[in-house]
């Protein structure tokens, strides 16, 4: 079955102002969503990415140039990703549509090219 990546974009500091009780409530929603996908057999795991902006490597005239990620250009980061299985884009989008992350950022759905 085709595999899709859900890339979770969010603004840096999105959750910083929540009270502890609110944070737990938000987490429970993510947890319930993840469990629902697992119960359907669609969840193939996920990982959180580090909050630093990473490194960019580009070949320039003087060899490989290494720079920090787009620090000032954008305060948006990819918080992490989920890997899911779905028949096609429509099904993948339907599964992502219930994700509580949509209240806190946006989701990019990409198919893993296995052909």
């Amino acid at each position, binding site marked *: 079955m085709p595999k899709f990546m859900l890339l979770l974009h969010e603004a840096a500091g999105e959750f910083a102002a*929540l*009270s*502890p*009780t609110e*944070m737990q409530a938000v*987490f*429970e929603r993510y947890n319930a969503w993840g*469990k629902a996908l697992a119960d359907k057999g669609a*969840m193939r795991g996920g990982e959180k990415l580090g909050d630093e902006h990473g490194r960019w490597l580009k070949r320039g005239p003087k060899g490989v140039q290494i720079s920090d990620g787009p620090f000032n250009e954008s305060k948006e980061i990819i918080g992490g990703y*989920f890997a899911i299985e779905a028949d096609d884009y429509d099904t993948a989008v339907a599964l992502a549509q219930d994700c509580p992350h949509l209240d806190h950022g946006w989701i990019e759905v990409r198919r893993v090219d296995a052909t």
Partner: protein
Amino acid sequence: MQSASSGISPLVDDLFRRESGRLVASLSRRFGVARLDRIEDAVQDALVQALRRWPFTGIPDDPVAWLRRVALNRTLDLLRTEQRRGQWVTSEPIDAPAPETASSAASPPDAGDDALGDDDLRLLLACAHPALSADVAVTLMLKTVGGLSVEEIARALLVEPAAIAQRLVRARRTLAEADEPLAIPRDAAAAVPRVQLVMQALYLMFTEGHAAAQDDAVVRFELCAEALRLSRRLALHPVLGTPELDALTALFALQGSRLDARADDAGIPVLLDAQDRSRWSGALIALGAHHLERAMRATQLSRWHLEAELAAAHVLRPPEAAADWPLIVTLYDRLMQLAPTPVVAVNRAIAIGFARGAAAAREALDALQDDARLARYPWYHAARAHFAMAAGNVIAAREAYDTALAFTASPPQREWLLQRVQQCGESG
């Protein structure tokens, strides 16, 4: 990689709020109350990390230990950054052993029952710092030990949220500038003058748990249980314990005994008269009765005695007996002399209504009309509505219920009020 579905076991209700209070307490004990603002930031960061990481990794096997480790590391990071910037002058390296170890040469290793063992008990007493005004100290206790948000504190104290935020800023500045950097009293005797303020804070913590206005659950049981636990520990403390603390503990236990019965299975509030007494907690009633008895060694009755008596008037009466409303009115009359708060005044008016009828209730409620603090208090308006309805004045009842709804955020409480509004419609 762990599967995202492995952490399906739900977290303990209220884990984040409870741990935020405990973490701030234990880290303040270790690094000093003067660093409270950085410690609170670090704890908040740890909770945010949990919220952002656990959806991907699943809940760790020991979530509490995970939070502790992350919060400690984050505190050390923040303090080191500050030290490098030279903002922070101290003779004590931040990686020094915790104060309790460092001071063990000065005091016997086992200080016995007089020691203030619990971190949160010590932090509570530290917040009751003599340099802080009572309002500010109570606000700080609710934030740090209670783990309440600014909004929740604002509601508990009937004060605007902006004013609460200001108080917290002022409190942290004062504590950071205080002469004694580690303001936690080392021995219990030094803490005695601070207990009054702590009692106020515990009372508000319990009340907020009881009202639970912003939650979907009618009762945030954890908050009430925490207030009861801390109050009981103080009441039984050989140096700090007083009859007032016994009265406060009795009040919490007796009120707490009915928590389960205050909502039906759908979470909708159930009025006292309609409550299923088999859902009251016998263990808590017994605990309350025990502390009420201990409280009677007092030479003078405090407001906590009166409030505990009020709770007992409902809980300790035999099932077949009706509530003794004239006695309840008398208790409220005396309570108004000791603690003339707007909320007590509203409850007194309600008791008058049950003792003497709707007209008397209306008169008592009208007398409170000009109190600005009650304008946003939903249960004042709900009480007006109840007795307007009892007097057959459907239009006034409906209006007052609408006003109450405008100031209620909690879904179950809204549902309850909407049911009342509907009854107005059926009679009108």
